[in-house]
């Protein structure tokens, strides 16, 4: 282990643990098998894997799809919290920063739930306390009776300035879209600022985040393109990636698919991404493009983690893969509950 000389044991330990955990994730073949099963069989299979404890604990309170949903959310939150506990030093800082995206999701869910008059229990079922807001903090927010008080209760949190600034407009327009976009932009801006502050390992974290931003910007671009939107789309651009806001806006104005792909190819360097852009030169459905982009992102992340085995990469790759495992299992269960054909469900699984 010459290459690992000088790296502290906790770093090696946590990265190895992440690789072991990643190996335990449900393989592709298992999803294929589950596609041919009914909901009770899927529940049983899930109950035999890493989710056993949650399924057993919740089995008396919930049943059917609710049991799977809540068990998956609990497991995801528990797993993420555990990882935050075991990661040392700067890896912990990066992990915590990366997981703050769950705060956005949780706060927006609570705000929307409150706006729609959803029951507290129902909102709580879908919260994933994986970010900086733990179960107690989320319970406190859930105890607030209206969105204004929820935002007030977040005073001092990272998100508060954006929430306080954007909520009046969201309330007036009845739409959280601008607030949601601004929260995501602030999230990435803060992560980049943190990674660029000179902290050890920040460069590797930055690579990962840039890839995430690039894929997100590309997905947005393809989505807006599918909609043939002529408006100014700079508001939806996340700064920090390979695409500048001007490139982003200019790309949206190109009508010809070939020219569009050529311009994109000139802006990116990753081979996998360039190969994908060549593949999607012919018109593909937006869903297909989105799935392929997610796949490229995961492949790239995997490569990064192999190139830097003792870094933040193995941790983040595991976090992402775990997220998609929960997403897939939930989609499978919900799809089966809605009696969707397996061919349709498989299109939406990230395998």
């Amino acid at each position, binding site marked *: 282990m010459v290459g690992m000389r000088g790296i502290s044991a906790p770093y090696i330990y946590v990265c190895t643990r992440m690789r072991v955990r990643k190996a335990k994730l449900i393989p592709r073949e298992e999803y294929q098998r589950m596609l041919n099963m009914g909901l009770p069989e899927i529940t049983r299979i899930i109950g035999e894997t890493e989710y056993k404890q949650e399924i057993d604990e919740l089995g008396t309170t919930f049943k059917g799809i609710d049991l799977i949903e809540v068990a998956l959310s609990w497991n995801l939150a528990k797993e993420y919290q555990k990882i935050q506990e075991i990661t040392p030093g700067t890896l912990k800082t990066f992990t915590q920063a990366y997981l703050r995206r769950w705060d956005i999701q949780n706060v927006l869910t609570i705000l929307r739930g409150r706006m*729609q008059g959803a029951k507290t229990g129902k909102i709580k079922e879908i919260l994933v306390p994986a970010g900086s807001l733990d179960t107690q903090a989320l319970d406190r927010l859930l105890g607030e009776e209206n969105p204004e008080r929820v935002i007030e209760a977040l005073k001092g949190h990272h998100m508060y300035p954006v929430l306080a600034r954007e909520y009046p407009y969201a309330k007036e327009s009845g739409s*959280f879209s601008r607030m949601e976009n601004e929260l995501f932009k602030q999230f990435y801006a803060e992560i980049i600022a943190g990674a660029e502050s000179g902290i050890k390992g920040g460069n590797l974290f930055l690579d990962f985040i840039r890839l995430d931003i690039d894929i997100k910007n590309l997905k947005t671009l393809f989505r807006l393109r599918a909609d043939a939107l002529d408006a100014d789309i700079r508001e939806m651009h996340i700064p920090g990636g390979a695409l500048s806001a001007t490139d982003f806006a200019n790309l949206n104005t190109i009508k010809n698919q070939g020219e569009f792909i050529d311009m994109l190819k000139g802006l990116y360097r990753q081979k996998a991404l360039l190969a994908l852009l060549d593949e999607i030169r012919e018109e593909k459905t937006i869903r297909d493009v989105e799935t392929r982009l997610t796949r490229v992102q995961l492949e790239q992340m995997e490569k990064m983690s192999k190139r830097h085995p003792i870094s933040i990469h193995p941790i983040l790759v595991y976090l992402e893969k775990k997220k998609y495992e929960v997403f897939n299992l939930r989609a499978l269960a919900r799809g089966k509950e809605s009696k969707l054909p397996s061919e349709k469900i498989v299109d939406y699984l990230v395998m």
Partner: protein
Amino acid sequence: MALRDVKPTRSELINLKRKIQLSERGYKILKMKRDGLILEFFKILATAKDSRGELLKKYERAAEMMALANTVEGAIGVKSAAFSVREVPQITLKSKNIMGVVVPEIDSSKVKKSVIDRGYGVLGTSTVIDETASAFEELVEAIIESAEIETTMKRLLDEIEKTKRRVNALEFKVIPELTAARDFIKMRLDEMEREELFRMKRIKARSNA
């Protein structure tokens, strides 16, 4: 009209002849209107069949997309995206005239929206929400189109039924009764004329004797 109520007078005969002429003209016009309406109805029927089929297809797709959106984004995600909609579709109702039948003409706007105008955040949602929203917008458009076609069809059918009843009434009741009354008056007038002639002859014969 019972024949016993008919006054066998010349003026009545003239009146009846006028009525028969009017009824026959009305009968011809109504028959032409009925045929015209039937032609229009069959033209619309073909469109209605297509639009009904299209509506059903779009409904099935929208329902499937909703199930998929619930699968991918969860019920709250779908609901929050749905509640983000700010602009509701606008419908303008006008009317047009098909052979005297007033049928609606529905114009709609703001049904199909762009991703930005739908009101949900692009960065926090996936394409499945776009596809679901788009499927439902197409469904609403199909419903509006079907509403126009099917209301037109219903009104045309009502009018055809009404015209058919009128044509039948004229053909089988009014005109035959009027013709019978005319014939009766003619017969009575002829008979009265013959009686008069006979009476005159008898008077003449008596006065000669």
